[in-house]
Each structure stands twice: as structure tokens, then as C-alpha cells.
């Protein structure tokens, strides 16, 4: 297992529901449960699932922007969090190695700072420059790397378009020369025409800087394009994890199948042949998730066993994990 750059084990994040003025509420939003996977160096792991399934929470909890409520995080062989052993490492040295690109480029940049300062701040925090000139050169270098130029350094975020702002957000993440980046739906707030540019930029940067990505998105076609492996989330749990070709061509879990069937097909003849699987009902509340398999309320194959037992997340073929009791029937 040591060839993994990042490993998480049974990672859990439960948020307390805000109670009334008097006393604390007992309810918890079970945003993330039993997240277990590893990401190899230089790999892109895609993460998909519908809104509210815990993707963003997963990304933030891995970086400990949210403090996990259970489980273990190991980065490059060093344990940075372990609930049972009560390990919670100081994050400052890891903030240099692990970065994040946020979803909303309109909200994630401080409106009072110039772009130069936004990109320069991590350089100051981690003391990565020798002189003022060095700092300036680094900032300009970063801006150029993401397709902006030196003129942009003295401007404020509100003077940029969405795509440009996301480039600033990426330059900011790159400022510390990280190894691992969580891309938290980095393109979902962007125009379709810009999405492709930014995706390509992510791929180029990965090659140039030898980066490892956790790429979160709700659009399976985008994730399929960029990822080596894909993990599918449903209501805070992983339902399937496989190589990206394997996952899209030979999906096993009924939920993954419905997602895959929703990918638009460019060829109209092929499109007519394919059948869309449309799920009924809504995602249940994560405050009170269904017992057993969390997908059972919307699953056409669900039976008594699904309500009783949580399906084990097991390897069915090499590198293909799935959590379902009725794989034989789904086939």
C-alpha cells in the first residue's frame, strides 16, 4: 500500500445540526462515512455523485479544512490524522504540499486584495522567496503559467471574468509548488466554452509539475475524461471505485449505471439504442439516512437484506470495488 501518496481510511465527517437556543441538538448530518481509498503519485482520482452526496466535504475533510470526526489520513507515509490514536498533526507544513482549488471563483478570492497579493500570500506564509524581486518574479511566473500576465497582478478580483478568476485560484494553489491538489468542482461555475480550456490546463499542469489530483465533479463525462480512476459517492458513502474505463463501460452498482446512462452520447444512432435509467424519488436526508444500504430507497433491486445490512465495499475484480448485495441480480 506504500505506493500511495495519500491514503484515507474510514474517514468520517458528521456535522452537528444547529439546535435550538437552549441545549445542543443530538442530530448529526452524516455527510461522510467510511471513506477509504488511496491515490497514487501522479494519478488523478475522479470523484462523482449528485449534489449533497458529500464530495465537497470529502475534499475539505481530507485537507482538514473540516476537522474529521473519525478515521485516518496518511499523506506520503506520515499520519496527519488518526481519530483512534488521537493524532492530529500541525497542518502548516502540509499546506505547502496539499492544496485545493475551490468551486466558486467569485467567492473564494478576498475582494480586498490584489491578485498579486492573493497569489503572493502563500509564498509569504511558507517563506518561499528570498527577496522582493524574487517574490515578484514568482508571482508573475505563476500568473503566466495559468495564462494570465504581469499586468493582472495589480488588479482586484472583481475586475476579472469567472474563467480568469478560476485561473487566479489555480495560480494561488500552485504558489506553494504542491504535490497534491484537491480540485473541488473547479469548472462547474464556469461557462462551457471555458470549462474545456481549464480542464486542459489542469492536464498540462499535471504533466509539467508532476501533480496528483483528487478531481471532484458532478459531471461524469468530465471526470471520465480527466481521471485515471473514479470513485462514485452516494449520500456520504462510496458505492463504486474502478479504473475510469472499467467504471464507465462495465459499471456494476445500480447507481453508477444510472449515472453512466445519463452521459450524453454524441452519435444519434448509438444514442437511440441506449436506454436511460431514471431514478425515482429524491436523495434521502443525510440527517437520518436509510438503514443498511443507503441507496435502497431508490434502488430497483432492493430487498429486505439491503435494509438490514450495510453492503461491504469489496473488490470484485482487480481494482474494481463495489458496495452492493445483489451484484448477481444487477448483472
Amino acid at each position, binding site marked *: 500500500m506504500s505506493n500511495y501518496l495519500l491514503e484515507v481510511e474510514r474517514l468520517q465527517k458528521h456535522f452537528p445540526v444547529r439546535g435550538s437556543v437552549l441545549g445542543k441538538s443530538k442530530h448529526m448530518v452524516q455527510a461522510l462515512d467510511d471513506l477509504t481509498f488511496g491515490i497514487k503519485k501522479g494519478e488523478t482520482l475522479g470523484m462523482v455523485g449528485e449534489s449533497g452526496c458529500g464530495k465537497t466535504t470529502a475534499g475539505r475533510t481530507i485537507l482538514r*479544512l473540516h476537522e474529521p470526526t473519525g478515521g485516518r489520513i496518511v499523506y506520503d507515509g506520515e499520519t496527519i490524522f488518526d481519530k483512534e490514536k488521537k493524532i492530529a498533526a500541525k497542518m502548516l507544513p502540509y499546506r505547502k504540499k496539499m492544496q485545493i482549488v*475551490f468551486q466558486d471563483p467569485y467567492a473564494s478570492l478576498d*475582494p480586498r486584495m490584489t491578485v498579486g497579493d492573493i497569489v503572493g500570500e*502563500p509564498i509569504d506564509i*511558507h517563506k518561499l522567496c528570498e527577496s522582493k524581486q524574487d517574490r515578484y518574479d514568482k508571482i508573475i511566473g505563476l500568473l503566466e503559467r495559468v495564462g494570465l500576465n504581469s499586468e493582472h497582478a495589480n488588479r482586484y478580483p472583481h475586475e476579472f471574468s469567472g474563467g480568469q478568476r478560476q485561473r487566479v485560484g489555480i495560480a*494561488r494553489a500552485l504558489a506553494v509548488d504542491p504535490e497534491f491538489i484537491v480540485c473541488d468542482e473547479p469548472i462547474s461555475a464556469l461557462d462551457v466554452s471555458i470549462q474545456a480550456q481549464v480542464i486542459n490546463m489542469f492536464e498540462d499542469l499535471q504533466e509539467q509539475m508532476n501533480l496528483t489530483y483528487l478531481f471532484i465533479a458532478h459531471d461524469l463525462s468530465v471526470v471520465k475524461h480527466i481521471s485515471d480512476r473514479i470513485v462514485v459517492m452516494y449520500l456520504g458513502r462510496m458505492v463504486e471505485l474502478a479504473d475510469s474505463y472499467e467504471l464507465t463501460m462495465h459499471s456494476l452498482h445500480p447507481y453508477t449505471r444510472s449515472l453512466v446512462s445519463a452521459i450524453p452520447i454524441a452519435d444519434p444512432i448509438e444514442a437511440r439504442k441506449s436506454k436511460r435509467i431514471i431514478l425515482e424519488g429524491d436523495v434521502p436526508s443525510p440527517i437520518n439516512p436509510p438503514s443498511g444500504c443507503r441507496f435502497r430507497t431508490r434502488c430497483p433491486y432492493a430487498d429486505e437484506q439491503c435494509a438490514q445490512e450495510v453492503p461491504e465495499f469489496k473488490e470484485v475484480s482487480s481494482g474494481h470495488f463495489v458496495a452492493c448485495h445483489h451484484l448477481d441480480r444487477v448483472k
Partner: protein
Amino acid sequence: MGKYLLKRVILAAVTIWAVATITFVLMNMVPGGPFLSEKAISPAATAALEAKYGLDKPFGERYLTYLKDALHGDFGLSLKQRGRTVSGIIAAKFPVSAKVGGIAVLVSLLLGIPLGVIAAYKRGTTIDSVFSVVATLGIAVPSFVVCTVLMYFLGVKLGILPTLGLTSWKNYIMPVFALSAYPTSYIMRLMRSSMLDVLGQDYMRTAKAKGLSQKVSLFKHALRNAILPVITYLGPMVAYTLMGSFIVEKIFTIPGLGGEFIKAINGRDYTMIMGTTIFLGTFMVFMLLIVDIVYTIVDPRIKLK
């Protein structure tokens, strides 16, 4: 910027003119006059006084004469304080009020902002609740109650603070406290709510991801973004506080402008009412202009055109 300032100065002149006109009209509609008193003055004497101050002339003529004189910086003689000019009285009393008020403004900023930041940062804890109760009290309890309570306990019962006049630094403690209770509480609540807003913003999470410690990001990112509502409030607040509060000045016998203002209205001291109103109006307009200029410094998104 220059063009903007010119526009603002012209607008300010119009505003002050409107304030002067409305005051002049209202003042003349109020029954009574400066020379009515319990002791009957002979009609001849009253007529002579009215002639001396030009009060026998028709309304329109008096209004125009007043405006003309005011434009030349002549606010006339006080009708009640014989032989003293309105400008002279303001020049003598304003510094007294401004000194007490200025200290109160400083106190409310230095207390209100940090307490609000702490309350937001510790939201939901006991500290937050205690602060919020104190702030609600500070806003709800009127200043004459604060003054009287302070005076009774600190001045009379314990006898540790002087209750009259402004002879030593100790005299300032109670009036400043009474004057700053409301603005401190108000600033604290503004700061808390606007800080809570900012703390939930994505860029605060960005700051955390960059590796910034919570304290630094609180002051470097959050405070700068959250301070705007406080600056907005500060403009009128500074103007009112420096002008002096009638109640506080009356209770602590401070010879300030706030007391003078009310005295002028009660005595129908027409020239004095006009003078103080125009002074307050001008001061207010000036403070609002300063606030707008400060906005552009604090928030680069705001441009003055």
C-alpha cells in the same frame, strides 16, 4: 476624484441650504417668540426689541436677509445672550463638547470593534452570550438612566468620581462612559454580524488552505472585509457625538454645545437655533463625504464617480 469632490461640495451646499430653509420655516411656525416672558414687558419695549433685531419685518424679507448674512459668514447676535454673537458662542462651546465626544468616539471604536470580533469568533459560547446581553443593554438603556445610575453609585455612594464640571481627567470618566455606551454596543453588534457573514465566506477557507493561522486571517482577511458597515455608521455617529448630548451635558453640568442647542430652542433664540442647526448640518455633510472617501480606501470595488 477632483470632479467628484466638486460635485459633492455643490450638493453639500444645496443640502445645507435646504436644512437652513426648513429650520427657518418651522421655527417661525412655532408659537411664541424670544421676547415673551412672565414679566409683562410694555408693548412699546417689545416693539423696540423686535425692531432692533429685525423681527418686525415680513417673513420673506427676514428669510432673505438671513440667507444673505449667513452667506457672508455672519450668523448674527444671539437674541437671548445679550451682546454675544452666535459664532462666538459656538466657538466657545463646541470645543468642550467635541473633547468629551471625541474621547467617547475613540472609546467606542477601541472597545466596540475588538469585542464584536471576539463575539463573532466565539459565536455560540458563553462569552458571546454575555457580550450580546451587555450590548443589548447598552442600546436599550437610555443615556439619562446610565448617567443617573453612574452618578448615584460612583459619584454619591462611593464618592470616587466628581459629578460636576470638567476640572480634571476624572471628570471625563462618567460622561464619556455615558456617551459611548450606545455607540460601543451598536458598533459591537454591527461588527459581530458582519464578521459572521465574512467568516462564512469561501475566501476565509482559502486563507485556511493557504496555511494562514486563524488569528492572522481574522485580522488580515476578515476584519478588512467586515469593517464597512461600521464605517458607514461612523459618519453620523461622530457628527452627533462631537456636537454634544443635551442630556449628558445637563446631568454632568458640562458647558457644551448640546445644552446650548436645546436652550436656544426653548428660548426661541432664533439666530442661535439657525446657527447651531447649520453648524450641525455642515458637520454632518462633511462627515458623510469623509466616509465615502474612506470607503474607496477600504474597498477597492467602490469607485467614486
